[in-house]
């Protein structure tokens, strides 16, 4: 029977492929000691367990790291998300950056030193000598000026995506915050602001403010939205520790060491490959299966599968984010939420500790105020704001006081986003179910709803179409204006539509806080704002969620930053 022969050949082929696998499998795949492969006897590389975390950094090796996605654009100025930053900040560098592990201390990167305080309008940067871009172009004051000028004169097509420049510099064009950028000499840049800005320095520490080689900008016609290839091509325009070698959308970004890096040492890794794996579960499976050696944003429920498991390690990243429940009394006509007591009932109905236990794997803290404890402003701004303890009886009592009971329950619609996980919101759907149950227990009647994150949910939430909705924030830079200001700021006398929070004196308090520059007074001014929005329950801050990076034992030197912005410069592989 010829057909059978055919079939058996095929079966054998599959078995052979399965079996020959281990011979071909990477040396750096995690040790499979607890489940020896059925195919058995291969003498693969020594297990990593002898390495531990000690020892001198070793040079060499390839690290495959799983992110949730690759970059939205390869042009740093046009990116605003963590996944883009993860790749681009290995290649490109800004003038200054946050000291690793902090959110409010700056250090020079391409700037050797600088002068300028929050109250000042003039900043003078002395640039680092002897830096060259990956394409060989020397780094100097002209290069910095070229980049700043490019951003300021961005064509309209770019402006929509150049979120951070617009946010930090208050828009684009000649009338924005930047009055002038001068190359005072070969290695000195003077930036003059139209008015003092306490967030300017923190702002330009962000990846979108990375300096790109002027020659590359020219070659990719980066100023022309119709023809620019800076965002899509593999170019050599950065100064960072890694150089882009290959970029395949939805597949991988391959970076190799920059041997001429200007820092104290060059990168230890020969090669860094970022793989996009959208699903947290698939990321964990990729680590367990050995196709990545590390990944970011582990599903909190999986922490235990890695933490303390043989061959793996977990690096916790302290929260610099907040999940909140938007409470909008103006979303629907005759909303029960118009009554402050009902809004307070919402706040008291939610058991934040239980949420943290179930959905954050215990990694996180209840959010009493919007700012996370990692922020330098936490104590000063948080002073005096109302904290709502979990108290379902109090919630029910408040509802009854407002005239609602079992026959006439307070009805609210409550929305959650799909197609998304966020550091502050690892499982929107799961959180939504749990909070819905808590609200119902307190006596609310909940109409659940969901919408796709980017395309439907965000616009609707910002338009103020939802009674209750989940949203959150990860800090861009450490200033209360980046939290309370961004969310509750008035536009043309109108309160932010998202919350419909029009409290007497709020607009004035925000204006006052924005313009107070001296640190102590600024904290007090923002705490006024915080008190107003918390006491009026314009939103219910829920959780500051920790996130975590899962690694095999071999990966050393990974330092997690609360901002999520992390360099692979110091990362190395042991036991190879």
């Amino acid at each position, binding site marked *: 029977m010829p057909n059978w022969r055919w079939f058996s050949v095929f079966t054998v082929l599959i078995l052979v492929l399965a079996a020959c696998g281990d011979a071909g499998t990477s040396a750096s795949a995690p040790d499979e000691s607890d489940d020896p492969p059925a195919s058995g006897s291969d003498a693969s590389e020594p297990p990593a367990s002898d390495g531990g975390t000690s020892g001198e950094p070793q040079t060499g090796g390839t690290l495959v790291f799983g992110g949730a996605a690759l970059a939205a654009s390869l042009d740093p100025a046009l990116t605003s998300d963590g996944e883009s930053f993860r790749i681009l900040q290995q290649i490109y560098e800004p003038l200054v950056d946050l000291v690793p592990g902090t959110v409010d201390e700056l250090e020079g990167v391409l700037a050797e030193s600088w002068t300028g305080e929050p109250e000042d309008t003039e900043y003078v940067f002395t640039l680092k000598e002897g830096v060259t871009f990956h394409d060989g172009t020397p780094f100097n004051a002209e290069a910095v000026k070229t980049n700043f000028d490019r951003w300021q004169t961005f064509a309209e097509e770019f402006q929509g995506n150049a979120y951070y420049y617009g946010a930090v510099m208050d828009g684009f064009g000649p009338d924005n915050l930047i009055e002038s950028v001068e190359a005072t000499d070969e290695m000195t840049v003077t930036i003059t602001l139209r008015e003092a800005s306490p967030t300017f320095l923190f702002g330009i520490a962000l990846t979108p403010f990375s300096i790109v080689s002027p020659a590359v900008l020219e070659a990719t016609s980066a100023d022309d939205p119709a023809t620019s290839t800076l965002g899509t091509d593999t170019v050599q325009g950065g100064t960072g520790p890694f150089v882009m070698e290959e970029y395949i959308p939805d597949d991988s970004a391959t970076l190799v060491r920059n041997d001429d890096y200007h820092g104290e040492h060059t990168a230890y890794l020969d090669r860094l490959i970022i793989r996009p794996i959208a*699903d*947290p*579960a698939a990321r*964990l*499976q990729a680590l*367990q299966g050995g196709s990545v050696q590390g990944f970011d944003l582990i*599903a909190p*429920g*999986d922490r*235990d*599968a890695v933490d303390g498991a043989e061959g793996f390690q977990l690096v916790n990243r302290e929260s610099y984010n907040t999940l909140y429940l938007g409470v909008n009394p103006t979303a629907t006509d005759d909303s029960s939420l118009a009554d402050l007591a009902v809004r307070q009932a919402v706040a008291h109905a939610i*058991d934040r500790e*239980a*949420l943290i*236990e*179930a*959905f954050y794997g215990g990694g996180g803290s209840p959010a009493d105020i919007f700012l996370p404890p990692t922020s330098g402003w936490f104590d000063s701004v948080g002073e005096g704001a109302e904290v709502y303890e979990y108290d379902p009886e109090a919630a029910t009592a408040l509802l009854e006081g407002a005239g609602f009971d079992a026959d006439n329950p307070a009805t609210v619609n409550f929305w*959650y986003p*799909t*197609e998304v996980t966020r550091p502050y919101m690892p*499982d929107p*759907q*799961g959180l*939504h*179910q*749990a909070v*819905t*149950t808590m609200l119902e227990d307190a006596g609310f009647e909940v109409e*659940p*709803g*969901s919408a*796709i994150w980017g395309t439907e949910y965000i616009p609707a939430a910002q338009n103020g179409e939802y009674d209750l909705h989940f949203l959150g924030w990860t800090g861009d830079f450490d200033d209360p204006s980046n939290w309370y200001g961004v969310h509750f700021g008035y536009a043309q006398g109108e309160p932010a539509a998202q919350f419909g929070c029009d409290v007497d004196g709020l607009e004035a308090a925000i204006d006052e806080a924005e313009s107070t520059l001296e640190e102590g007074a600024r904290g007090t001014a923002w705490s006024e704002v915080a008190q107003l929005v918390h006491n009026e329950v314009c939103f219910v801050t829920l959780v500051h969620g920790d996130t975590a990076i899962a690694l095999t034992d071999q990966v050393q030197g990974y330092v997690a930053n609360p901002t999520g912005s992390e360099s692979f410069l110091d990362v190395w592989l042991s036991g190879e």
Partner: protein
Amino acid sequence: MTGAAVSRPVEQQERSVGLWGDALRRMRGSPAAIIGAAIIIFFVLMAIFAPFIAPYDPTRGDLGSSYLPPSGEHFFGTNVQGQDVFSRIIFGSRLTLGIAVMSVTIGVAFGSLLGALAGYFRGWIDATIMRGVDIMLSIPGLLLAIAVVSWLGRGAVQIAIAIAIVNVPIFARILRASLLALRDADYVIAAKSVGVGGPALLLRHMLPNAIGPLIVQATLALATAVVDAAALGFLGLGPPDPRTPEWGAMLSDTYRYLTDAVHLAFFPGIAIVLAVLGFNLLGDGMREALDPKLRR
């Protein structure tokens, strides 16, 4: 066996027993059809009596008792919300069967309408309808369903409509093909020759004879509808209230715990396979029973 009672020569029984009686008799002799029917009846009973069978409220969660392993108290364990997975699977049958039946009903109704129009009128009506059918069929079915749900929004009815839209061109094609085959059948020609025409011919003489393949296809479509509904749930396009138990969504909600809690993915998966298998077995048995070639 009951078979003895109907074992009179088929030819003599043609008028009284006819196609359907014959088919039914044949199906009773087919173990596949019997097992399939048994599985379906099992799920139908499960759906009807869900409140009496399920030990817990499937939507009621308690974060304090999340991820309990299977035990005497929770046969299939609990999920992250602390909901009883066994009860959710029991109640999940309601949504799954409901969507399957609704989608196939809509699909058959519109599909056979289009197919009948095309097959009966021929000409430009036929050409237009069949080009439309070609266009629909050139888009992968699941993708089409995803697009429709994205358009109409999430919800059981929307999912049923989405799956129905995928099925419409298939039913249209099948009915049209059977009608075309019948046009030249002797009895149709005979009917025409004695002056029967128009809708009467179509309704009274052609449709009843063309409907066999349609019924088989409808049964098989119930199977694919179960899979498609679960696939949509798996991709996160299930019912809008996540507390509503739906097998596909249950599978995707929990598959991240594959390493430590396989049962959370396993039980809903098995439920889907069983339901699909039931419809497939039944459809298969019906096809064999109705297939004139096999009847010889």
